[in-house]
């Protein structure tokens, strides 16, 4: 029973890796509480968006988490083109 967390952009540096498996938790807040405080704070930042299984959530309120869900944390994009 696990969740996969994906850290994009600079969040990868804070997490120390691009993705990580964590035990299934009831809520997104329970997921955050089980992480290192610095990483949890970075993920909770207002400008970081969350996608669950590739679907972008409009806000952070209470996605229902299931075994095997992929949670991607998306900081503001920095674009590619000049």
């Amino acid at each position, binding site marked *: 029973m696990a969740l996969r967390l994906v850290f994009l952009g600079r969040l990868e540096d804070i997490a120390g890796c691009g993705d990580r498996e964590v035990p299934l938790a009831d809520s997104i807040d329970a997921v955050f509480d089980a992480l290192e405080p610095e990483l949890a704070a970075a993920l909770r930042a207002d400008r970081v968006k969350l996608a669950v299984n590739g679907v972008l959530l409009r806000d952070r309120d209470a996605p229902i988490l299931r075994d095997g869900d992929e949670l991607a944390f998306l*900081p503001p994009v920095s*674009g590619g083109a000049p």
Partner: protein
Amino acid sequence: MTVADVRLLTSPFDPADELAGFAASHPAAGGIVSFTGQVRCDAEAGGVEALELRHYDPLTLPGMGALAESVLGRWDLEGLLIVHRSGILFPGDPIVLVAAAARHRRDAFAATDFAMDHLKSESWFWKREKSGGSWRWIEPRSEDFEDIRRWQ
């Protein structure tokens, strides 16, 4: 009905080849506008040795496809091409190519300009640059938000 050609590539591409193929595919278009973005190679760029673009598979290409649809809905085009690199790039490497083919050139200019502004500020890419041997993530620029505000 016009269908867009939208691609996310993880290896180098040749904008000239792509444009030649695109022009040949749209003989009814009188005009083709293109934008090519490439990794700058010059001293003023702060000696950037490499650039890395990261994307997120479930969102990035679908987001580019949605952008292409909105461009096609807004202007009368014969064709639309969006090619974007992901991965590690070096000075001189092409990053992005957008091309619009239209009967009237105003449509092709506006569509390409709009697509670039939105690709740059809204598409799911994260960029980091390597200089002096170390990588650093690039933060969004306020100009990017000003650029898209023009269209709202």
